[in-house]
């Protein structure tokens, strides 16, 4: 009997040092269905897809195509099996035409000469059949994001792929484009293609998918038929109900407004739509405000705008009553803003510098560390670093002279936190401060944030971790597609409700 499944991944287990990325995960994709794969960041979706594409080899489990076990050792094997993927960030050559991009790598040729006419006919036929409406002669850099994505889809179809994987395809699209994409996906499925749709947007999953498999923290939670489920149910499956630990904190006593953001927009680096769209909010003394949301909804760019790493497209920022919209980064840093960056290796540390040099990264230019002639004062730097190491319990092999590169992630983060908090800022911006850290370090960092709040400072926390979002802040602002779609009180809201806002299934008109 013929197998009803186009591709099956059975009991896949993939371990990395210290973490099980995929723990006995089973995913069965039926022929001609649209199957959603749902999960938070770090749930193991990417790892699972990397296993399917042969980028990683699973320790346990097997992959079957049409019921027969197959071995996928590299992406070429996956390609030969008819598996194709539209990546979140398109893999297109900007200065080539649509047609050139589609045939790239599989150019039809006779004796080494391109036979484009043949290719053009095939592309146009496919385009008409599935309603993709592309202009084969347009340059990629001139066309819309939606059309670029359709070019990616055509790339898969041109290669006669039967199994199509869409990796968060709607993240970069406008609502109209999403609408079109949904229709295209349905057309493809109707023509017998099998589609795997990776997403964490519940509304889209409900609208387009036949079935949905859910992963959480590397584990397989279950597969449900979308017509028999609700968004609330899916949300609960995605985030889970069990809260691991609780943060002790007293009542919040908010004071005057420290940060006042109005109508802020920031351009995106990866697509043409703005990453942050006309956002307004305030942060007061003595409160922790959390920007919650799924990764890639504009949080990173929002912080870049606040810290001065990226210019604003529209709007203004007032800090302690002063307009700092156009102030330099140094000016912001010295006037009372501290910033614990999202990526400690990219922004937070100079990895080849010693711990002590990293400790003074934000204040090496102060008189206590630099003489009038411009020489660094080594002894005060050493003393200062030693004090911070002591106070914040930063552990390292050789103390102040340890290269930052040689330190563990948790201690690198502690060093950054020590440096930023010791500046005694009026506003502390902490972006995913506990990412990748163990429970002990997380607890320490949460305590520090709350201590700052209790000392009357304003804290802006950006987090992707639902537990953190529920436990640490006094107010939650949910970001979705570059906008603030809800303001929640962590004391009265539930994770399920939060999940609905984060996935765009629910939104309020939020007043600034």
């Amino acid at each position: 009997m013929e197998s009803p499944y186009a591709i099956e991944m059975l009991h896949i287990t993939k371990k990395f040092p210290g973490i099980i990325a995929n723990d006995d995960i089973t995913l069965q994709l039926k022929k001609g269905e649209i199957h959603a794969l749902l999960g938070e960041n770090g749930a193991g979706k990417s790892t699972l897809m990397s296993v399917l594409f042969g980028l990683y080899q699973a320790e346990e489990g097997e992959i079957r195509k049409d019921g027969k076990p197959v071995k996928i050792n590299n992406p070429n094997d996956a390609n030969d099996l008819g598996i194709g993927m539209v990546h979140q960030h398109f893999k297109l050559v900007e200065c080539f035409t649509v047609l050139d991009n589609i045939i790239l790598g599989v150019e039809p040729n006779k004796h080494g000469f391109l036979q484009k006419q043949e290719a053009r006919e095939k592309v146009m036929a496919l385009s008409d059949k599935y309603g993709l409406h592309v202009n084969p002669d347009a340059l990629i850099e001139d066309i819309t994001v939606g059309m670029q994505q359709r070019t990616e889809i055509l790339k898969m179809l041109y290669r006669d792929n039967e199994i199509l994987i869409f990796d968060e395809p709607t993240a970069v699209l406008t609502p109209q484009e999403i609408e079109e994409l949904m229709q295209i996906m349905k057309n493809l499925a109707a023509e017998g293609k099998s589609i795997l749709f990776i997403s964490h947007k519940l509304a889209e999953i409900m609208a387009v998918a036949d079935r949905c498999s859910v992963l959480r923290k590397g584990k397989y939670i279950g597969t449900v038929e979308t017509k028999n489920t609700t968004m609330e149910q899916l949300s609960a499956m995605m985030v889970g109900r069990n809260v691991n630990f609780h943060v002790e904190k007293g009542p919040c006593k908010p004071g005057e407004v420290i940060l006042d953001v109005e109508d802020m927009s920031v351009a995106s680096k990866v697509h043409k739509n703005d990453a942050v769209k006309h956002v307004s909010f305030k942060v007061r003394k003595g409160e922790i405000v959390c920007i919650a949301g799924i990764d890639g909804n504009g949080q990173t760019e929002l912080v870049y705008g606040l810290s001065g790493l990226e210019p604003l497209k529209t709007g203004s920022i007032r800090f302690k009553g002063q307009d700092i919209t156009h102030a330099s980064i140094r000016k912001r840093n010295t006037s009372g803003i501290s910033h614990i960056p999202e990526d400690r290796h990219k922004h937070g540390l100079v990895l080849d510098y010693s711990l002590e040099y990293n400790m003074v990264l934000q204040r090496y230019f102060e008189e206590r560390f630099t003489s009038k002639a411009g020489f660094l004062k080594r002894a005060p730097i050493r003393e200062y670093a030693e004090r911070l190491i002591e106070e914040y319990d930063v552990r390292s092999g050789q103390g102040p002279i340890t290269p930052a590169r040689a330190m563990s992630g948790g201690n690198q983060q502690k060093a950054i936190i020590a440096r930023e908090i010791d500046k005694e800022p009026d506003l502390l911006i902490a972006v995913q401060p506990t990412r990748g850290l163990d429970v002990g370090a997380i607890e320490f960092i949460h305590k520090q944030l709350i201590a700052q709040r209790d000392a009357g400072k304003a804290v802006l926390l950006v987090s992707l971790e639902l537990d953190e979002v529920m436990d640490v802040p006094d107010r939650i602002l949910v970001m979705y597609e570059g906008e603030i779609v809800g303001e929640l009180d962590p004391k009265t809201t539930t994770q399920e409700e939060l999940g609905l806002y984060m996935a765009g299934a629910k939104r309020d008109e939020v007043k600034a």
Partner: protein
Amino acid sequence: MKKNLLKNPAVQSLIASLLCIFLGLLIGYIVLLFINPAGAWDSIVEVVKNFMHSPRPERQLRSLGTTLVRTAPLLMCALSVLFAYKVGLFNIGVAGQYVAGVCAALYAALAWGWGWLPCMLFALAAGAVLGTLVGLLKAYCNVNEVISGIMLNWITLYTTNMLLSKVKEVASPYTLHLTSNAPQALLPTLGLGRFFSDNQYVTIAVPLAILFAIGVNIVLDRTRFGYELKATGNNRNAAKYCGMAEKRNIILTLVIAGALAGLGGSMLYLTDLEQWSVTATSVPGMGFNGIAATFLGGLNPIGTIFASYFIQHITDGGTNVDLTMYCAQISDLISAIIIYLCGFVLFIKQSMNKRIAKNEELRLQKARLAAEEGGTK
């Protein structure tokens, strides 16, 4: 746990540099074998011997002095490259900045009759101006410093030829001798020549270049400016995050790099050891050799002193190759091969690190396996 000596970066640099030198000599030797096996060994020995070529000690000393005279400008060029490299910039324009220094120094000396100090400062300024141009283009228009540097090299070369044509000898393409035409511009020797069998070309340029190397080391290691430069070079994003003025630092770095190279130009030509040929159709190798010296010196100003000397040593040694057996270009070819291999220091260091990491990984794996087996038994 036993400390792995090979993991020490300084030791690594030293080993990698020595390995490069050895490989360069080996390949040079093989090339000579192909051309004419009879004289290959003798020739490569000549290259390594350089000033020891002559059997007479006083001749040896004299020729050592000449090598030192040429080492000084090379060191300045190497420092220029090194300084820019610490900020993540590749100053290939060093060759042109060096020529600009030569041009400014000779023109000021011969046409205007300036003294040696103003000539030197003028050379420094000329190099700095070129550096500024590259820096401004890089900082404000994001023009790659390699492209603008190479283009400026040619512009500078022909401008120099044009200007120096006004102060050349009537019968030859060479500029006038300073000794007879502008003795006021000769660099003071402070009697240094006495140590090298009265080699009058050994001047303050030699100790001055070494002082500059030490100075660069201090600036990079001890000052706020050096702290910012290295932070920018190591992690541009972190430098931006903590508010360092990136544009200003890029421009300032290239100004200083240009100034060092320009000064280097005056350090050679104000000794009168060489005269500039206004028919030159290529930029002198001094600047490019500076790039090799930087890498051979392990990107360390002090290491660069020795690397510069070594490169000049074999370049001069190359001229002693027996020309009855090989054509005249052979000396340049051999030194070019060795210098080329010198650029591989970073590559060798990387593969060394990879090997060490791999070995450790294997050892850990074995230990784990052994532990697991022990556990099951």
